[in-house]
């Protein structure tokens, strides 16, 4: 286990150190201490590392992550795991605005609540939120899955493309072109697998969720291109 003290070594050295580990390394386990709400912690990692951040983080923690598993032992500030490509980001506490925004792959797990605009413009990422999500979540979400064990705020999935949204609690309001859809066996199987990977298998059953998706009236969906989504 490598321990990196942000208070003494600073952010630039942290990210340079982690970026230098591209490809093969045997220094895979990292603990970052004294996070103290700093911005851009462990951004742009591209290696199969296992990183734990002690304390709460500021803006953009774990942004653009590839391959790594990054666990935040606290709350995350705005833009956590923004544009994640692959790997996993797990937040033990709450996440602020636009968690997982524009994410292209990988898995984001938020064990507390996420605030507004969670998963905005998501493009392939899977997001599992154990608590509730704020308003305008999954706005213009293009692909990937969002699972919410709690409630969703106003305008869920506004101007949605082909992302799948699963909410167990109430939805305050649906955004434009977002509708409830039938939950088919394939969705239940997918949801069971997402809950398991999202460390929520013991908290909820797939049958308790409702599925929401695009009514496909707002954007120029062409069924011939369905395979591309």
């Amino acid at each position, binding site marked *: 286990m490598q321990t990196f003290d942000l208070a003494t070594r600073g952010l630039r050295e942290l990210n340079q150190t982690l970026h230098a580990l591209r490809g093969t390394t045997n220094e895979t386990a990292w603990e970052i201490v004294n996070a*103290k*709400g*700093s*911005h851009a912690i462990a951004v742009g990692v591209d290696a199969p590392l296992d990183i734990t951040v002690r304390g*709460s983080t*500021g*803006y953009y923690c774990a942004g653009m992550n590839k391959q790594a598993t990054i666990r935040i032992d606290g*709350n995350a*500030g*705005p833009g956590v795991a923004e544009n994640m490509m692959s790997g996993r980001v797990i937040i033990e*506490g*709450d996440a*602020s*605005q636009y968690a997982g925004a524009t994410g292209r792959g990988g898995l984001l797990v938020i064990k507390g609540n996420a*605030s*507004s605009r969670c998963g905005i413009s998501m493009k392939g990422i899977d997001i599992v939120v154990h608590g509730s999500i*704020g*308003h305008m979540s999954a706005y213009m979400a293009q692909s990937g899955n969002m699972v919410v064990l709690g409630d969703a705020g106003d305008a869920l999935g506004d101007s949605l493309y082909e992302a799948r949204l699963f909410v167990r609690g109430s939805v305050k309001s649906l955004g434009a072109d977002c509708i409830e859809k039938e939950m088919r066996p394939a969705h239940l199987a997918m949801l069971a697998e997402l809950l398991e990977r999202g460390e929520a298998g013991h908290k909820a059953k797939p049958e308790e969720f409702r599925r929401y998706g695009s009514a496909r009236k707002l954007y120029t969906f062409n069924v011939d291109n369905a395979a591309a989504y």
Partner: protein
Amino acid sequence: MCGIVGLFIKDKTLEPQLGALLAEMLVTMTDRGPDSAGIAIYGGADDGIAKITVQSVQPDVDFASLAADLGAAIGVAVSLRRKSSHAVLEMPMDQLDAARAALSALRPDVKVMSAGDNLEIYKEVGLPKDVASRFEIAQMSGTHGIGHTRMATESAVTTMGAHPFSTGPDQCLVHNGSLSNHNSLRRTLVREGMTFETQNDSEVAAAYLTQKMKEGANLGEAMEASLSDLDGFFTFVVGTKDGFGVVRDPIACKPAVMAETDQYVAFGSEYRAMVNLPGIETARVWEPEPATVYFWNH
């Protein structure tokens, strides 16, 4: 972008540290607003003594005989405590209005930062750490306080354009965001008798709340009304003589984090601002909901 910090003390033993804690929070928010900074401290006892905080660009000249001149004009003893470009004038509470009228006649160029029973406001152009040390904020005690670091968008970088804005006795407001209907609202408020020092949108928000409270609303009701009458982006933190309030617009894109323990309620634009508060590790930390009014009273 701007930075806001606020601290409302619940445990009296923490009151002597208010200035030190708030100054440290303010300096942490320098990245969000390096243009200018300001701080409002509620510190006075309920002792029948009124305070007016004034500011001058030539304090040596303006403040030299101000206490004596003002005392002679209103017929009571007035004291003056100078801090850099600012000074705090003290006089009996029942002479506050007379003192303000006399002040504007005696020193028309001197600006009033705040007036009331226990509020002092210090604000200047410059880095937050310089502003905080210039006014010895860390040495101040008090019950609650609000600070602001400014990155200007809506009006010039001047002392009067810095926050907090005070438009009523013991009232002040800081703002992160921008309002789009401030010109029309300013015209309405002018017709209702409010006066303005700047073209700044945040001053309009402060005056709006003052007007609502003048009409009988409490702080919570005034902030509730602002959600329907103010158009634009805002996170406001507001102070009154014994209260402290927070409200965000319905879109809520301007950041806000709050923390509460048995000892205090704290506000920061970012969690970073609060990391050195006592007991923050075990505090209840949350993000205030959009279009929801929060306020605390002593």
